[in-house]
């Protein structure tokens, strides 16, 4: 996934914005020839903070345990803005090149519903937190999607309907959690672009540590607006589809809605402005309410919270301590380590699976993703500076193919703690230094995953008799004796030759291929501890010399 974000160092407070929607020319879509589709998206992303937007709840995972009196709207309770939520929203605004407002205010949106304990949601209706910005979609055309605004608001409680008892149960754990509502301009032209926008935004939110963006768990939800018109003519009437909780459902909802609009327009009727839902059973949208039934939310400024002031200095501090954005990581990895773009994508995808820490914390072990793991191994020189740095390609190979490969065979996902980076570094060094063979390296890794222990790879290699066998010459030149009880490779080869007289005769008669059979015998005897090439050389010398 490619995020072509403009660097944060410039253009942040630029006021000149091009009208991208008018600049883009219409591209015919085979699915709906002669029609133009216009899509805008509101994303609600839950802010990853231990505190709620305006309260400090008790902690708990069971329903109705992570609740403070304020969250349950008890009489007399008052809101208290959690600055950590503001800091995380600031990261997002910076990443989207959005203009953070030095003053923003909070308003109450009123409606009665069991999942809304106070009877109103605190949001930013009149002056939102940040205005403008853009996200460039990772397509060849690098489609820019303009951001209209970012606002802070409270999440609602969760209501769970029990069909058996025909009762609705309320869980207040989510009530009052901080949400960022990120509103795009209607700059998308297909369900695919809409999907790309949501996925790009998701990885951006995760990269800056502001939200885990998990749609399955509801920490990221979308409302989409769609309209259909003839190219060149004014936009059609838009319909809003509420509460889509997966990218797949969003694309289905859009396709279904686009077809519905085209059917209506084809029959020369007009599309009524509506708010619609999406049925995960029929994969179709259905009417929730018409424009006439639109509720009056009776917006009113919240008199308790007053104005949220953010200074340039505060923004600067957040900018300086902000995690690297994905596109910057991508180009840095390619440049610094000369990696193939395809490998970088794999590493970034692996990195995106890391847990997002609470409150934007960095430095904790859980926040270390695959990228930091990789860089630790490349940069940590182990024994000392005298050793040359590890080959990044080799390191990446070990991470992607061996470590992740063996983990997925065990139905596990990558975490930086599973095999400490210093251990994998030691293992790679042993293989690269011919202390153990590559085959032994793989079995050693398998052993470490299977038998968690405190012993380092080096200790284990000795303990498990994995140290590579050496020839007589290597032993004498190294000046150190082989481990007790170990034969040298020359002796083993000699033994194999004496055990396979028929093959020796065939080889000497000119059947060169039979040598591989003898090599195989040696390899089997040494259980992978010998280097096949070295074995072949020793055998050839012995047989040709005879």
């Amino acid at each position, binding site marked *: 996934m490619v995020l072509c974000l403009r660097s944060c160092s410039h253009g942040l407070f630029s006021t000149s914005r091009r009208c991208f929607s008018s600049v883009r020319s219409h591209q015919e879509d085979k699915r709906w020839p002669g029609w133009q589709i216009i899509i805008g998206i509101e994303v609600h992303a839950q802010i990853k903070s231990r505190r709620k937007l305006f309260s400090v709840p008790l902690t708990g995972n069971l329903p109705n345990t992570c609740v403070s009196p304020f969250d*349950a*709207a008890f009489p*007399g309770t*008052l809101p208290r803005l959690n600055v950590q939520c503001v800091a995380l929203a600031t990261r997002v605004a910076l990443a989207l090149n959005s203009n953070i407002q030095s003053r923003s205010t909070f308003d109450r949106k009123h409606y009665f519903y069991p999942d809304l304990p106070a009877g109103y949601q605190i949001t930013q209706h009149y002056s939102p937190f940040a205005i403008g910005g853009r996200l460039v979609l990772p397509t060849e055309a690098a489609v820019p999607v303009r951001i209209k605004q970012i606002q802070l608001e409270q999440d609602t409680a969760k209501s769970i309907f029990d069909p058996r008892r025909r009762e609705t149960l309320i869980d207040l754990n989510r009530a009052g959690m901080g949400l960022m509502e990120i509103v795009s301009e209607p700059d998308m032209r297909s369900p695919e672009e809409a999907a790309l926008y949501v996925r790009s935004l998701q990885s951006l939110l995760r990269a800056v540590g502001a939200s885990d963006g998990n749609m399955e768990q509801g920490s990221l939800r979308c409302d989409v607006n769609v309209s259909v018109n003839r190219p060149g003519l004014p936009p059609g009437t838009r319909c809003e589809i509420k509460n889509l909780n997966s990218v797949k459902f969003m694309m289905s909802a859009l396709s279904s809605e686009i077809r519905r609009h085209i059917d209506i327009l084809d029959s020369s009727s007009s599309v009524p402005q509506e708010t619609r839902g999406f049925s995960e059973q029929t994969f179709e949208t259905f009417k929730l309410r018409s424009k006439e039934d639109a509720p*009056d939310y*009776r917006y*009113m400024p919240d008199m308790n919270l007053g104005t949220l002031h953010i200074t340039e200095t505060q923004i600067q501090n957040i900018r300086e301590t902000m995690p690297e954005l994905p596109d910057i990581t991508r180009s840095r990895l390619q440049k610094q380590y000369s990696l193939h773009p395809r490998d970088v994508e794999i590493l970034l995808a692996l990195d995106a699976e890391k847990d997002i820490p609470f409150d934007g914390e960095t430095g904790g072990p859980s926040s270390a993703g695959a990228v930091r793991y990789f860089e630790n191994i490349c940069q940590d020189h182990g024994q000392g500076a005298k050793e040359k740095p590890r080959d990044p390609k080799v390191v990446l190979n070990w991470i992607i193919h061996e470590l992740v490969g063996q983990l997925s065979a065990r139905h596990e996902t990558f975490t930086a703690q599973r095999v400490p980076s210093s251990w994998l570094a030691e293992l790679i060094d042993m293989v690269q230094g011919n202390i153990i063979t590559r085959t032994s390296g793989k079995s050693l890794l398998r052993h470490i995953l299977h038998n968690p222990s405190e012993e380092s790879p080096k200790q284990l290699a000795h303990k498990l008799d994995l140290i590579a066998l050496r020839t007589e010459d290597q032993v004498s030149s190294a000046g150190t004796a082989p481990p007790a009880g170990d034969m040298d490779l020359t002796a083993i080869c000699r033994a194999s030759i004496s055990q396979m007289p028929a093959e020796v005769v065939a080889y000497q008669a000119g059947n060169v291929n039979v040598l591989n059979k003898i090599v195989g015998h040696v390899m089997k005897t040494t259980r992978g501890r010998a280097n096949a090439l070295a074995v072949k050389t020793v055998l050839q010398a012995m047989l040709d010399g005879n």
Partner: protein
Amino acid sequence: MLSRCLSTTPIRRHASTLGPKATDSLWRQAIIRKNDSINAIVHVASEDASEALANGPLQKVAIAVKDNICTKSMPTTCSSAMLKDFRSPYDATVVRLLKEAGADLVGKTNLDEFGMGSLNTYSIHGPVVNPFQLPNEDSSWESREQRSAGGSSGGSAAAVAADMCYAALGTDTGGSIRLPASYCGVTGFKPSYGLISRYGVVSFADSLDCVGVIAKTTKRVRAVAEVIMVPDARDPTSASHALRSNASSHSPRLSATRLDGLRVGVPAEYFPSELATSVITPTRRVLSAFQSLGATIVSVSLPSTPYALSAYYVIACAEASSNLARYDGVEYGLNVTVQRTRSGDTAMRSYAATRTQGFGPEVRKRILLGTYALRADAFDNYFQQALRVRQLVRDDFNKTFRSPDVRFMVSPPAPAADQHGVDIIVHPTAIQPAPLIDDNTKQGLDAYVQDVLTVPASLAGLPALSIRSESSIRDSHEWPIGVTIVGQWGSDDMVLRVGEMVDMSLRS
């Protein structure tokens, strides 16, 4: 889960059945003897349950708390059927501060439901009857004339007047401390907005609500107010230490016994046609006291005053409609269950039934008015317009006072910029003495007119102290009337010191 049983026994009856014990404090004995006839206290705390700390500036001082201020150990009903059996899981900051200062919290006081009313007649506990009796009346005290104690802090003012406590906490949104203080002949103080924490005070209108103190004298008011006038991180509208000291640095310096140099403004607009003639004399008496202390009396004009009352009711009702939306019977409080139907709107019908049964007529009326004012098509004409008037009222005060409102001060004003400005404003607290309880006129707009003199200070968030205008209430031959001293935002200490000196002067 809180018990939802609906007891029909009025709480005040419990006190009389026990009878005073020798160990009871004089305050508690007064509650036991008089509360049946006044209905000021709706819950009496048991003395052994007192959680007061042993040492503190208010050690063993009996203080009653208005029943819309949350207390962990006593119910908090807000005089509403909605919260009839409600007990708060936490103490309000003011309650905690009083306990820490050693105060003996004797009970909870009656009020108009959720603080909405000016006569303390809209209460599930029944009306508060003013304890005052003219000395020349023949009847026994129990069968005295049934006059209103004022509202909404009527229980607090009446409890103080009847010596049931040394002081009482009240809340004031548009005059709810000053008006009952005036009617009951006691001293009532509404501080500057933001000086006393609202955490744990059940919201009526957040931008106007203030906690304040009622006691017999300004000296007593000050003793209690000083304990609770501290910044609180739990209240986002609580003023910081810095803002407080900035404000008091702009207040005029007073000598210990004289008011020489103090400029007192009397606003012409505060003597409307509704003003009873019986109100003029007490006001003159207080102004003479000011003069005898060396203060200069000048006439001032606050031209936006006539619009203040309408703006106040729009803002207060709009905020109330929002703040009271939480009472839906789901998390706590009254819950009226409805028959399930196939239409699937059980929750909505249950809300309607709960809110219809749980709220009294005045609260329902104000919620409806406020809901209307916030409608998208009415918002600009009502709420926005009211906010503009509120700003005009603030501007009026700022033009009149010598010192600036430090909350909105952009740069420090030029020193002594306005020698024509005044330090305080003095006006009658109410347009009339306490009205009769069964007076039919109280039902209409007239009840709202009671607040006409008190709402400007609420809209501007200014400190306002209603003091007694008589030398001694026992010798009075007329129903009491309060006179209010208003100061610039944050000049609370000065206002209280001025009030103390005038108290002394009136009694000498």
